[in-house]
């Protein structure tokens, strides 16, 4: 009889390197951050070796932090919504294109991901600045110039720009799986183009749209470079706040506390959303 032990150990051996890698690079720093967030901190002497909940209490009772959390949530939600509103029709048009154009436009859509985040963001700040292209154009037509740079608007514009591919690709994939005759069937039954889209095509791509929103929301809520460069010093989001606590205030435990709170909040929102997605998937796709 063949010994069973080698066959049992093979999966462990195969999964081992990956698991070690994950533990070393994700779980360990996360655990250290969690522990750090409970350390006491003193402005003159630095991190103390005593444990306290005071950072958590300070964060959740301070309007300053709550406002930043609220702004982060608002910007991430708005970005997700705009990505869905723009990305879903974009994916539909893409799926109806003939081949040379489809490849060209697919490249245009994933273009932002191919450009370094710093270059891309500086590009936006040049466009949106007080003497940027947008304001010059407004002045040319006799409109007063507007302040876009260092506002939430600038952050949302730049985030939508880079997040769009994460919405378009899953929706496009869902559309690819659709039998084009199903839409045609709706037309023959008397549905207009728009009704067929709304009643027949859309319900079948919601799953792609929901998973796209999950990615967009998660990435937007934890975005760092875009708010850092386009939000300026005062308009902070969660990730830039953590950065400032660590590197400007040197209050590492407080920074760690904020990071943990953001992580947990993000996790809760995404898990709840995912449950919704799966419930829906089970209902329509089996």
């Amino acid at each position: 009889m063949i010994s069973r032990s080698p066959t049992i150990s093979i999966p462990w051996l195969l999964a081992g390197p990956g698991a070690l890698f994950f533990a070393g690079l994700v779980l360990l720093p996360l655990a250290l951050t969690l522990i750090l967030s409970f350390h006491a901190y003193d402005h003159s002497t630095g991190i103390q070796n005593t444990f306290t909940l005071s950072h958590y209490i300070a964060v959740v009772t301070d309007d300053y932090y709550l406002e930043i959390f609220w702004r982060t949530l608002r910007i991430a939600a708005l970005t997700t919504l705009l990505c869905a509103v723009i990305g879903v029709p974009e994916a539909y048009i893409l799926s109806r294109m003939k081949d040379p154009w489809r490849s060209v436009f697919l490249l245009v859509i994933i273009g932002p991901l191919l450009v370094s985040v710093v270059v891309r963001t500086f590009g936006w700040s040049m466009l949106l600045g007080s003497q940027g292209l947008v304001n010059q154009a407004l002045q040319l037509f006799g409109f007063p110039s507007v302040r876009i740079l260092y506002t939430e608007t600038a952050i949302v514009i730049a985030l939508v720009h880079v997040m769009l591919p994460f919405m378009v690709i899953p929706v496009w994939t869902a559309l690819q799986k659709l039998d084009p005759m199903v839409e045609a069937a709706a037309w023959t039954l008397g549905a207009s183009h728009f009704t067929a889209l709304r009643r027949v095509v859309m319900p079948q791509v919601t799953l792609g749209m929901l998973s796209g929103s999950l990615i967009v929301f998660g990435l937007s809520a934890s975005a760092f470079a875009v708010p850092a460069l386009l939000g300026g010093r005062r308009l902070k989001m969660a990730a830039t706040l953590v950065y400032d606590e660590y590197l400007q205030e040197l209050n590492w435990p407080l920074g760690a506390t904020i990071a943990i709170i953001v992580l947990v909040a993000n996790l809760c929102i995404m898990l709840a959303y995912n449950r919704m997605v799966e419930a829906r998937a089970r209902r329509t796709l089996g």
Partner: protein
Amino acid sequence: MAFLTLERVSKEFGTFTAVRDVDLTIEKGEFVSLLGPSGCGKTTTLQMIAGLLEPTHGRISLDGRDITREKPNRRGLGVVFQSYALFPHMTVAQNVAFGLEMRRVPQAERTERVREALSLVQLSSFADRYPRQLSGGQRQRVAIARALVIAPPVLLLDEPLSNLDAKLREEMQFELRRIQRKVGTTTIMVTHDQAEALSISDRVVVMENGKMTQVDAPYRLYEQPSNAFISSFVGKTNLLSGTWRGNGAQIGNVVLEASAPDIAPGAPITLSIRPEKILLRDAGSGRLDGRVLSRFFLGSQWLFTVETPVGTMTVSIPNQGNEPPTEGSPVSLDWSPANLRIMAGTATAA
């Protein structure tokens, strides 16, 4: 007056012509089948009528109105798709109700009509299932119900019965025919099953390589096929190539008596005779002597293959309750010369 007409309709996909110069006139209430081998352009023709493909050339009109460029949702035709094209996220009942909803039929009437349509296709107990929970034949019946429920003036059916078992298929054929008679729905049905086309239609349109080659009533199509391809595609037949001799067809060294008014002596011809038109006689007493190669018992009839000087012939005789000739025994074939059909040109094996 013609209800639905196609005038020199063609469809090209790039350089490939899928349908070429189709002319067809269909009367109100007629049941027409489109019959032809796979890839001959049946679905393409149907989709042009439905408005899902735009003809490259030609004109389509319905009830005196030019609909060549009209949107499919304005034509109001009922379509059953070859791939069914059910809405996967809707239940069977919702699928069937969709067309009524688009027509703003009141809720109570809608429910009633959906119920009727589902009972017609024997799916009443499946109303709350999703298409993925159905078998192929059940999906096909949902597609039929969805097209029937809107009571369209024209029904376009793309192989609507291909996935049903023999009994259900016969029942559905009967239902389609009954609805068509009762409501007077003009019906165009695509099929590649010649028996179905013959049994159910008022007229059969035979298509080959994108062209219409014969449009006729089933009986005439069977008895007077216009070419060798049709005679072998519609029903079984024996095809023999030979030369026309004025008063008969010369096949090899044998001349078989027949008549063909339009053919010049010396021209190459194809001779066709149906297996059931041939009689088996005792050796020496018929027109052509031969030997039984094999015989198959089919219940209501016997099917023989007989080796003769002009080639192997298939013969079918009704089962009369007595034992017919055994394999290897000499027999003689006889027929009435009127049942020999002579067509110009040589047969392409089909």
